C-alpha cells in the first residue's frame, strides 16, 4: 500500500496496512520555526526556513524531513498572485514590538522581548456601529495561482502520496467576525444583531467560493483533501451555543462543502479547536468527513467516547498527543504512554489519521517528539 492508498482507505473508514501519519502537511499539523530547527539538528540536516504562516510562525517542512518521518500526506505550496492592492496591508515596528496589518485589516503585534507569536490587537471595523459603517470595509480579492504549480501535486500523487490543501481564504464563518469587529463585538452581535452577521457571512461565502474557483483552476482534480478552519470550542465547551452553531454557522459550511465536493474533492476536513463534542453531529450533517485537531484534553473529548459515539461517521485527524500539556511539559515516558493509549482508542476500523493535537510549538523538547514518533511507529500496524 502506498501512502495515498493508505490515507484514502482510512478516510473511507477501513483499516489500511498501518495508521496513516500526518506531520507537517495538514491544517494545524505543522511545526513552528524554532521547533523545526530542533528537528533539523536532530536529523543533522541544513535547510533554509520557509515560513508559511507568519502570525503562528509556522514553517513548511521539506520533503526530505517528511520522508524521514515517513509521513503520508503532502500539501500544496501556494504562490498566490495578488488580484488587487490591499488598502490595509502594511508592516512596521517600534521599540517594543513588531506589527503588521493583513488584507483583512486585522492588526497584529509580536513583542520583541519574549514574544513568540503575532497576536491580534486591532481590527478594521472595531468602531463600526451599524450596517452602514460595516459597508466601509474593503474586501480582499481572492488570489489566483500559477497554473504550473499543479505539477507539484501531480508529482506527489504519482510518487504515491496523498495531497491536501491546508490553506483557506480568511478564517471560518464563526471566527472571521472577531478579526473584523473584535471578539467581544462580534460575539455580542451574533445575539443582538444577527442580520449584520449573516450579511457578512453571505459575502464571506461568496468570496470563499471565488477562492476555491481560483484554486481549482490550478489544482482541479489533484487534491485529495481540503480543509476549512473554524474554531467552535474552548476548554470547557463551545464558544456559542450548539444551537447557534447549527442554525447560523454550519449552513454556510454546508454550502461551501457542497461546492468543493462538486468540484471533485472527495474529502473535507473541519479544523475546530476545543471542546466541540456537542457540535459533532451537526458537523457531520454539514458534510465534513474529518475532524481536526481533536483536542482530547478539552471537556467531553476523551478518545474512547469520541470513537465509540462518532467513529463510524467522522474521521479523527489528530488527537495523537495532547499538545497543551504532555508533549511540551511531560516526560518522554508520559509521552509514550499517552501516544499508545490514544492509538489504542482511535485506531480500530480505520477512520483515524495520526497527528499531534495542533501544531508542534517552540517549547516541545525534541526527546518528547521523538518519543511520540517512535511509539507511533511501534504501534501503527493493523
Amino acid at each position: 500500500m502506498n501512502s495515498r492508498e493508505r490515507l484514502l482507505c482510512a478516510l473511507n473508514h477501513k483499516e489500511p496496512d498501518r495508521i496513516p501519519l500526518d506531520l507537517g502537511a495538514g491544517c494545524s499539523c505543522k511545526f513552528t520555526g524554532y521547533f523545526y530547527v530542533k528537528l533539523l539538528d536532530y536529523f543533522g540536516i541544513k535547510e533554509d526556513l520557509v515560513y508559511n504562516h507568519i502570525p503562528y510562525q509556522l514553517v513548511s517542512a521539506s520533503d526530505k524531513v517528511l520522508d524521514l518521518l515517513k509521513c503520508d500526506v503532502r500539501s500544496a505550496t501556494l504562490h498566490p498572485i495578488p488580484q488587487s492592492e490591499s488598502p490595509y496591508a502594511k508592516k512596521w515596528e517600534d521599540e517594543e514590538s513588531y506589527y503588521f496589518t493583513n488584507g483583512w485589516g486585522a492588526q497584529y503585534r509580536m513583542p520583541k522581548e519574549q514574544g513568540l507569536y503575532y497576536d491580534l490587537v486591532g481590527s478594521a471595523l472595531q468602531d463600526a456601529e451599524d450596517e452602514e459603517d460595516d459597508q466601509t470595509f474593503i474586501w480582499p480579492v481572492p488570489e489566483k495561482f500559477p497554473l504550473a504549480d499543479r505539477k507539484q501535486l501531480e508529482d506527489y500523487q504519482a510518487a504515491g502520496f496523498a495531497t491536501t490543501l491546508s490553506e483557506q481564504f480568511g478564517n471560518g464563518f464563526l471566527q472571521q467576525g472577531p478579526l473584523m469587529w473584535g471578539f467581544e463585538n462580534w460575539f455580542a452581535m451574533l445575539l443582538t444583531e444577527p442580520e449584520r452577521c449573516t450579511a457578512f457571512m453571505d459575502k464571506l461565502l461568496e468570496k470563499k467560493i471565488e477562492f476555491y474557483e481560483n484554486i481549482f483552476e490550478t489544482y482541479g482534480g489533484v487534491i485529495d483533501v481540503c480543509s476549512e478552519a473554524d474554531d467552535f470550542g474552548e476548554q470547557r465547551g463551545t464558544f456559542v451555543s450548539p444551537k447557534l452553531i447549527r442554525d447560523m454557522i454550519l449552513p454556510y459550511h454546508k454550502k461551501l462543502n457542497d461546492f468543493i465536493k462538486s468540484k471533485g474533492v472527495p474529502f473535507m476536513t473541519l479544523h475546530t479547536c476545543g471542546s466541540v463534542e456537542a457540535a459533532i453531529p451537526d458537523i457531520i450533517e454539514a458534510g465534513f468527513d474529518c475532524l481536526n485537531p481533536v483536542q482530547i484534553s478539552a471537556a467531553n473529548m476523551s478518545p474512547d467516547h469520541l470513537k465509540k459515539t462518532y467513529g463510524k461517521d467522522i474521521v479523527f485527524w489528530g488527537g495523537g498527543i495532547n499538545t497543551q500539556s504532555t508533549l511540551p511539559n511531560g516526560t518522554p515516558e508520559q509521552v509514550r504512554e499517552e501516544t499508545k493509549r490514544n492509538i489504542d482508542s482511535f485506531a480500530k476500523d480505520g477512520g483515524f489519521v495520526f497527528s499531534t493535537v495542533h501544531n508542534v510549538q517552540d517549547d516541545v523538547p525534541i526527546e518528547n517528539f521523538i518519543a511520540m514518533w517512535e511509539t507511533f511507529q511501534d504501534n501503527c500496524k493493523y
Partner: protein
Amino acid sequence: MIIIGEKINGSIPSMGKAIQDKNEAYILECAEKQAAAGANYIDVCASVQEEIEVETLKWLIDLVQGITDVPICVDSPSPHSIVAALPFCKKVGLVNSVSFEGEKIDTIFPVIADTKWGCIALLCDDKGIPTTVERRLEVFDNIMQKAEEYKIDPSRLYIDPLVETLSTNGSSLTTFVECTREIKKRSPSVHVTSGLSNISFGLPVRKLINQAFMVLALGAGMDSAIIDPTNRDLLGLVYATKALLEQDEYCLEFISAFRAGLIGPKAK
C-alpha cells in the same frame, strides 16, 4: 445635483500653506463651511510629496471627519495613495479619480469592486486628452467595460468628460456638451461631473465664464460638479438652472436654499 466641495486641496495656494503649517483651524473651518453650504462630498487632496502623502491624507481626513459627517472624496494623482487612504474614511465616499492612464483603473477598480464606493473617471488615456468627441467616447466605453468586468454599477461612476482651456481651444464647451449628451444616452444612470474652473484659465473675469459654463453643462445633462459650494453666485445659478430645467418641482429646492440662506444676497 451632487456637489463635491473642492476647497481642501493642497494645490490651492492658501490651502497648501495651511497643510504645510498644520493649520488645523483653517482646514476645519473650510470643511465646516462646505458642509453647511450643502456639499454632498468633501474632496480631500494633500498635494504633497508622495512619501508623506498617505499620512497627510490621514491627518486631513481625520480632521474633516471630526467636524462633519459629510463623506470624503479621496483625491490623489497616485492610485496607490488612494487605496491606502480608503480605510481612513468612516463613511463610504468617492474616489478622485481614475482614467485610462497607466495602471490607475486596474489598481482602483478591483479594490472598490465589492464596496459601495463611487468613483470619478476622467475621459483620458495614455495619449492624453482625446481631441475629438468620438475618441473621448471610446475611452468612456472602455471605462464602462472595465466597470462591468468588476461588477461596478454605472450609478457609482462619475464621468468627467474634461474641459480644456477655452482661451486656447474654442470648442472646449461644445466638445464637453456633446460628450455629456451621448454619455447620458448610452448609460442614463451614470453621473457626469466636472472640475470646471480650468475652462476660464487665462481670461479676465473668470467667474463669468465659469458661471456660463455651469448653466450650459447642466443643460446638457451634467448632474454633479466639483466646485466651491460656499460660492453663493455659482451655487445660486445651479439651483436656478435646475428649476428652469424642470428638475425642481414647484421650485421647492430653489426656495428652500434661499430660505436656508445658501443663495441670494447675504442677510445682514
